[in-house]
């Protein structure tokens, strides 16, 4: 497949109503998906949930499918403690859905025994989901955020 053909496909997806197209040609599989912002009305949850739940699809060419079909990378709590979304109750949250983050950006604070741990992002990407409520306890390894990596 040459670059012109690839360009055609990208334009096709861009102009059409579909959000994703998958083409297999001569053993090469190409997935083109429209980038964020995701429309709130899209029936994402129904599609997303089974993908996460079932590891069955991982048999395919994993390097390709990981980056294209995975709805985003989950960021897990590195420690147990109380989750805080902002530096203080009166300030703006560290991150909001749709925000772009880069490695080293502070995502939240987790407090244990009055040790305030700022949790830094290890990835670049866009925040798709925030999975926990401000001020609640989180367990070790509990998913906190979904970030669409770029």
């Amino acid at each position, binding site marked *: 497949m040459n670059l012109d053909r690839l360009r055609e496909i990208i334009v096709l997806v861009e102009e059409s109503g579909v959000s994703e197209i998958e083409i297999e040609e001569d053993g090469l599989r190409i997935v083109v998906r429209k980038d964020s912002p995701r429309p709130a009305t899209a029936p994402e949850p129904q599609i997303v949930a089974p993908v996460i739940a079932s590891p069955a699809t991982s048999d395919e060419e994993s390097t390709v499918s990981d980056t294209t079909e995975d709805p985003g990378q989950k960021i897990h709590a*590195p*420690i*147990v*403690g*109380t989750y*805080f*979304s*902002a*530096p*203080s*109750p*009166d*300030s703006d949250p560290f991150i909001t859905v749709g925000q772009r983050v880069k*490695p*080293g950006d*502070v995502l939240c604070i987790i*407090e*244990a*025994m*009055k*040790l*305030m*741990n*700022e*949790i*830094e992002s*290890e990835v670049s990407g866009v925040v798709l989901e925030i999975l926990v*409520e*401000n*001020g*609640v*306890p989180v367990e070790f390894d509990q998913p906190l955020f979904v970030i669409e990596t770029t």
Partner: protein
Amino acid sequence: MAAKIIPPVLRPRWGVPGSLFYDMTSRIYDTPDKTVTQNSDALQDVANMYERTLKTDSLGRPFRFESLVASTNDMARDWALVGGPHGALFFADEQAQGRGRRGRVWQTQPGVNLTFSLILRSEFLSVDIGLITLAAGFAMFKTLRTLFPTLNIQIKWPNDILIGPRKCSGILLESSIGADRSDKFAILGIGLNVNQITFSGDLERTATSLLLETGHRHDRIGLLVAFLDELETRILQISGDKSSFLKEYEGHLAGMGSAVRLNSFDGGPAVTGKILGITEDGCMRLQTLSGVQVVYAGDVTFEDGSDDLEL
């Protein structure tokens, strides 16, 4: 009044513990309604006294003394980011924007209290940094208990110090956890009300100082040096025998064996129960109606009808 320029103050040369020089590149802080009341000569006397009397092996060296900063934790953090070593101490005669947990303000008047921060690097600690917050609280308790044996001093989990029902010392640790899930460093910030006479707002009811409790003034540097020595000892203790430390700690824990309420911050759920003790990690074990619960964070208030003791 927009900003004030801090006059040249005393700083140690990095990497040469205790060696002092004047740094003309003092930073500018935006501190409306605050003035620099301490001149650098007086601060140098304080720093000299500190250097002469410090007894520790590594904690508290090197050190930087400044007359006025926004927050010693922020200054220590900036220092750590450019290589400030484990044990380094940042002391401020006055803190304009000292903070406690969740945006609370730590009020200090100039030149009367102890406000300082220490850089702790995890590679120098053979214990979990979480337990250090308890060790710091206990070290402060022990320091005060030794100097003032007649006062009713207790620890409020995890590391506040109460004299009677009022708080005289607070400790806040801040650290960041990055990509490799390792602690790069933590900043241990400590405030002790020493010679403050008046407190405003709610603090009038909930805060106290050593002067108010004893009726006379106390030497801040003497207290600082004694605390650092005690903290070094306690860090060694928890590196070896955690259980003996936890037993001692529990022995002076306010509310041990009685009912407390742990309020979460920012509107999270509260937990009520009887304090059973402290786990190996420093968490509080509570007997609740639904069984034994381990709590990692929260704001202790006592359920015996006394007022909310949190500042």
